[in-house]
């Protein structure tokens, strides 16, 4: 069924009795051409682009819970392509371009809203750094504008500009950045993959990976053995656990990241704002709640909940930026498990095991990457080699030294 104004009108006239489920809840078959382990946004996007771009439709997505139950449903929904390093910027810009055509492409309302992403700077040195990043973006053909204080004041008059310690001097603006509806992204990719023949298998946890003679040939699951010619791991915070089933040890630590939603208020923030003197980012949902977050808690964790010191730190940063939020109540707070890589950048690559592919290391920037992650991973699996766009996101870069360390923090996963 294609969603359109016509289909909406038709269903409205017959009492919405004709809508079909957007995807089948499939039972696993004994064998597939490609298995995608992990039914989050990236896994579903991988299956979608395998079918759409490469004609590989004998594919199953295996999800241990329900699709989108992990970080796809736990993020702060920001999309942007404002990176410095060439290996990252071309990838995130590919993602931004896919976001721009995504809803027409998979015929689903993902509520992509290019409301602008503004990174604030607070010192001359930080302005220089942002100018450098903006120039790098423009050299990649990406939009970037460096605003002075007056430019930021015109957009957001209510910041604490004269803050004694961290006055706001200006910002780097990417107008094409914005937000998207996180759950709808997972559902749209699921529907698009399913309609092309992909099986979406939920409540199916992978408990073993069968490797014969250095080649992955199938998986053991809670719903039986499934054989496959190729297997892609897209497991976010559970990456180390699942990869260890094939004997792989990875440059990844799992850390918990918290996010928050305030009570709903009238329109206040019409874009995405990031504070430059602490770790704080905020936007306003269409329901009116402020959606915001900050740093990871900073220690290894698989618990989907955080601790109070980081809650305090996030609130303090928010108060320093815009004291008006002190009048708001926080409605909800939650945590997700991040696959923090050792240089802060992702991995989309083959592995030393034939037929086993890895998509991981998203740190806490995975949501914006969802379309390009799936697009590049599908290419890597289908062609057995990375695309140019993800050709620097290699697993062996930690051994060769060709790191993608955007922040220059070194092998410290809790500082990226």
């Amino acid at each position: 069924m294609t969603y359109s104004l016509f289909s909406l009108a038709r269903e409205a006239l017959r009492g919405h009795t004709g809508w079909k489920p957007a995807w089948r809840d499939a039972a696993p078959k004994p064998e597939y051409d490609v298995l995608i382990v992990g039914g989050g946004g990236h896994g579903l996007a991988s299956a979608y682009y395998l079918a759409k771009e490469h004609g590989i439709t004998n594919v199953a997505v295996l999800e241990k819970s329900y699709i989108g139950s992990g970080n796809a449903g736990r993020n702060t929904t920001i999309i942007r392509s404002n990176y410095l390093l060439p290996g990252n910027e071309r990838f995130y810009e590919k993602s931004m371009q896919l976001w721009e055509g995504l809803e027409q492409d998979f015929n689903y309302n993902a509520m992509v809203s290019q409301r602008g992403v503004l990174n604030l700077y607070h010192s001359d040195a930080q302005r220089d750094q942002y100018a450098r990043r903006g120039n790098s973006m423009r050299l990649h053909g990406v939009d970037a504008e460096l605003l002075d204080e007056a430019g930021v004041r015109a957009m957001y008059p209510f910041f604490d500009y004269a803050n004694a310690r961290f006055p706001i001097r200006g910002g780097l603006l990417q107008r094409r950045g914005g937000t998207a509806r996180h759950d709808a992204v997972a559902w749209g990719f699921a529907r698009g993959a399913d309609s092309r023949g992909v099986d979406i298998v939920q409540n199916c946890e992978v408990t073993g990976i069968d490797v014969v003679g250095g080649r992955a040939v199938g998986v053991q699951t809670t719903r039986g053995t499934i054989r496959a010619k190729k297997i892609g791991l897209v497991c976010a915070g559970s990456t180390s656990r699942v990869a260890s089933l094939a004997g792989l040890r990875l440059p990844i630590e799992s850390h918990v990241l918290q996010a928050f939603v305030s009570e709903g208020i009238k329109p206040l923030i019409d874009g995405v704002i990031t504070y430059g003197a602490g770790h704080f980012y905020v936007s306003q949902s269409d329901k009116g709640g402020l959606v915001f977050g900050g740093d990871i808690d900073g220690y290894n964790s698989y618990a989907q909940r955080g601790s109070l010191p980081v809650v305090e730190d996030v609130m303090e940063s928010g108060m320093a930026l815009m004291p008006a939020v002190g009048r708001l109540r926080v409605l909800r707070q939650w945590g997700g498990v991040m696959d923090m890589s050792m240089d802060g950048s992702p991995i989309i690559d083959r592995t030393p095991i034939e037929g086993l592919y890895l998509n991981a290391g998203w740190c806490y920037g995975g949501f914006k990457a969802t379309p390009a992650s799936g697009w590049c991973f599908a290419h890597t699996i289908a062609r057995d080699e990375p695309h140019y766009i993800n050709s620097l996101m290699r697993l062996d870069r930690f051994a060769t030294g060709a790191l993608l360390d955007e922040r220059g923090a070194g092998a410290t996963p809790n500082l990226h």
Partner: protein
Amino acid sequence: MRIPCPHCGERGNEEFFYLGAAGLQRPAADASADAWHDYVYQRDNPFGTHKELWQHVNGCRRWLVVTRDTRTHAIAAAEDAAGAPA
């Protein structure tokens, strides 16, 4: 999360600095590139019991080896790193 410092008693984790997995053995300077790659970048990242290094920077400043469950954050032991087995 509260960490039972063997010198200062139970304190909030915001008093501590987290380094990461304990027990990583620094290779000799002339060890192979593989050995250095393993030491610097590769991690077990266990789902469950994790031995890890915390420094009580806002307390006794001692380095501790903390045994903690990464699923629940429950702490089974916290020992001074100088006396802890590797």
